[in-house]
Each structure stands twice: as structure tokens, then as C-alpha cells.
């Protein structure tokens, strides 16, 4: 773990050094490709200006995650309990992922307005699918011998769900959640691009129009930090919850 972290760190530093050297060597202007040192300086020194935007995006992402969990978890359980429901819903689930989020973003902004609701829904739409599918697959992967054991102990479906299926599916659930939180910012930012009054996506559009590419990159950097932090947080929760692995 420590070794892989070192390798990752070294790789990032190498890319940044090459990038910095290329910008300096080719004398690239900031509005084409700013130097990493410039981006980091903007990200740090303009933090007071970036922070409210980041807070808005973070709020959209977090509420989106909660919303998608609220729908995905019961849905996966119902689909597992009733295969007929799974068969009926599966095509809609797949279709919801086949439609690009860019296509539905303008509609959501029209329906839900420029506030955070449309962005929350965008984030939730993106996160919902990996969580539902991975949780459902987790339930299905339960060893049949354990199912038989519970059957013989006279456990009903919901008791089996609580004591067997859920703990069994937890590693799958966290894998889906990790994927979900990694891409959650995409939904929120796309929503902000289409129409918003605050948020890192909104800031990027504004900065881009003024050729402040360093600020665009600074916003991307903040988004990346947000995504990685969420990923690490989920990993931490996973370790705390799945203590037996």
C-alpha cells in the first residue's frame, strides 16, 4: 500500500515536471495551457473565491449520493426479492444509462430550475446505476449452501436479507459506491454547465469565457480533490464496516 502510494506520488510529480518544463520550454501562454505551478497557485491563493463554489458542488454531490442510495438500496432489495420486478425494471435501468447525461441535463434544468435540485438529480442519476447493479449482483452472489442453511434454520426472506445477504453483498455495495462517488461530480458539473448560479462547473464556464484557463484548471483540481476525497472516505468506511476481510 505504502509502496503503491509512493509510485502514484512519483508518477504525479513526473507528469507535473514534464508539463511544467513543456510550458516553460515552448513558452506557452496561460490561456492555452497554464503551468502546473500557476494552477496550484490559483487553486491555493484564490481559495476564498473557489470555496463557496466548491461547497455548492460538494453539497450537490453529497445530496445526490444520499438520494441515489435512498432509491438504489430498496430497489436492489426488491429486485432481488422479486425477480419479476427485476425483469420488468432492468430495461429501464439500462436505458437510463444509455442516454447521455448531457442530453437530459437541459431538461432537468428546465423542469427543476437553476438551483441545486437539477444538479442533485443529475448526480443521483449517474451514481444510482452502479450502486443498484453492484448491490443486486452482491445479493445474487451469495453461496447457495448458506441460503440452504438459513432455509433450514427457518429464516424468512427479510431475516435472511439482514443476517446473510446484506453482509455478503457489502463488498459489492462498496465497490459500486466507490465507482458512484468517483463519477458523481460529473453529473453535478454537467448540470452546472447547463444552468446554475454557483458551483465549480458554473465557475469553469465563466472562467472559460474570460480565457482564464488557469482558473478552469484550478476548478478541475478542486473537483479532482473532491472526487478523490470521497473515494478515500468510502474506502475508509468500507474498512470500518467490513472488519472480517
Amino acid at each position, binding site marked *: 500500500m505504502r509502496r503503491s502510494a509512493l509510485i502514484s506520488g512519483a508518477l504525479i510529480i513526473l507528469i507535473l515536471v514534464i508539463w511544467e518544463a513543456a510550458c516553460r520550454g515552448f513558452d506557452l501562454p496561460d490561456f492555452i495551457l497554464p503551468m502546473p505551478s500557476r494552477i496550484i497557485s490559483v487553486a491555493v491563493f484564490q481559495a476564498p473565491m473557489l470555496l463557496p463554489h466548491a461547497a455548492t458542488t460538494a453539497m450537490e454531490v453529497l445530496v445526490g449520493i444520499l438520494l441515489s442510495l435512498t432509491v438504489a438500496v430498496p430497489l436492489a432489495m426488491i429486485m432481488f426479492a422479486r425477480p419479476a420486478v427485476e425483469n420488468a425494471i432492468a430495461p429501464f435501468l439500462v436505458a437510463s444509462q444509455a442516454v447521455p447525461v448531457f442530453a437530459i441535463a437541459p431538461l432537468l434544468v428546465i423542469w427543476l430550475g437553476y438551483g441545486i435540485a437539477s444538479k442533485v438529480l443529475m448526480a443521483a442519476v449517474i451514481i444510482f446505476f452502479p450502486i443498484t447493479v453492484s448491490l443486486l449482483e452482491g445479493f445474487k452472489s451469495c453461496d447457495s*449452501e448458506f441460503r440452504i442453511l*438459513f432455509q433450514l*434454520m427457518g429464516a424468512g426472506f427479510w431475516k435472511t436479507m439482514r443476517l446473510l445477504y446484506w453482509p455478503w453483498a457489502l463488498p459489492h455495495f462498496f465497490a459500486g459506491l466507490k465507482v458512484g462517488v468517483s463519477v458523481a461530480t460529473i453529473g453535478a458539473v454537467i448540470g452546472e454547465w447547463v444552468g446554475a448560479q454557483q458551483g465549480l462547473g458554473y465557475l469553469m464556464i465563466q472562467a472559460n469565457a474570460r480565457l482564464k484557463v488557469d482558473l478552469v484548471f484550478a476548478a478541475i483540481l478542486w473537483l479532482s480533490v473532491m472526487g478523490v476525497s470521497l473515494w478515500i472516505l468510502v474506502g475508509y468506511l468500507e474498512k470500518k464496516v467490513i472488519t472480517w476481510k
Partner: protein
Amino acid sequence: MLSVTNLSKRFGDLSIFENFNLELPARGFTVLIGPSGCGKSTLFNVLTGVSAWDGGSVSWNGETVEYLKDISAYMQQKDLLLPWFSLMDNALLPAKIACQDKKAAGRKAQSLFGQLGLAGFEAYLPGEISGGMKQRCALVRTLMFERELVLLDEPLSALDAITRRSLQSLLLMLQVEFKKSILMITHDIEEALRLADDVLVLSGCPMRVLDRIPLDGPKLRRLDEPQLIRIKEYVLDLLQEELER
């Protein structure tokens, strides 16, 4: 007393057993031995109601029953301990599912932990203990069912010879101290000869009883006795013939 009369089970065109008969006296220890895949585990699945039988009848103490699920405790080849529960929580699973009094169940489990040499390991997770201890814990869980009939499907097959030998005496404890009637599947002829009151030698598919061998004398028999050597050779010959058939 368990009586199985003319029991039949088919999977499509394949007859697993037909007109299969079996009698297990109260507090008896009967061992089923036969070629791999002959249908022994299917017999247990059918008896416990995991899958339906196609014909015949089963009676327990003279009363015809639909299946033995509520009469028997079934211990499978794998320990099937839930990795997220401590050994004590695993042992208490039948009581928890049956909503039994927690304190009484806890006292009983604690006493069984002591009797089966697991005292002090109650809080351990299954992943932290040896295979032999896992099987003992599975045995405690089986005893927590409080059922007179115990079905054991190769409970010791995954263990090394020394651990297996020490657990054989625990199986006898089930019969003598806990007053259980035991029906056990094994591939180990020596194990059968050491423990059983009766050995039923089974044929390949469709499964039938080739011979019933009653055994006398004190249990945990020494296998260097001439009579047991002869029986072992006889059983091996029967199984060999069956394999060559």
C-alpha cells in the same frame, strides 16, 4: 425412530434414487457410505425439504412427516460460519432466527463452547481460528437447534487426520451425551467403522442400499481388530465392484 420408505427422486430423466429405504433407530448412529455423486447429499436435501421428493414417505417416531426440516439439524460438509459474526454469534444464529430467549440461548451456547473445547474463543471471528475449531463451532450451532435427529454430511472431510480423530469423539458425544439420533455421510470407511452402529453401503445412481453392516462393541473402535479389517476389505470390494459396474 426415522423410517424412509420407497423414497424416490428424479432430476429430469435421471433417477437419483428409487424405492430407497432406510431405518434409523432412536439414538442410533447410522453411516451412509457410497461412491461420489451417488445421491447421498441429495437424499439429505430431500429429507430436509430443501428439494422435493417424487415418491415415497418419511416417518419420524411413527408419524408420517412432509420433511424433516423441523425435526432435524443438518450440518453440511463446509462449516458455513458467517465470517462477519463472532463464533458465539454464529452459534446463536439458530436461536436468533427462532427468536428464542437470548439469555437462555447464550447460557446454553456458553456451556457447549466449554464442552467442545471452544471456551475463550467466543469473540473470535471464523477467519481467525483453525479448520478444526470452525467445525466444532459448526457443531455447537448444530446442537443449538435442539433437535433430536442430526444429519451430518461429511462433517470432517475437510480436516487433517489428527483433527478429524479428535472431532470423531465429539460426534460420539452428540449421540451419547446429547442423546441424538445421527445419520452421517462419509467417504472415510475407517471413520464409519470407528463410529457407527450401522453402516449402509450404497450403490451408484440410482442409489440403493447394497448392504447394511451392523457393528457392535464400544465406539471409537480400534481398526486393527481382525473383524473390522475384514469388514473394511468387504466394503472396499463392494464399492470397487460398484465403481466397475
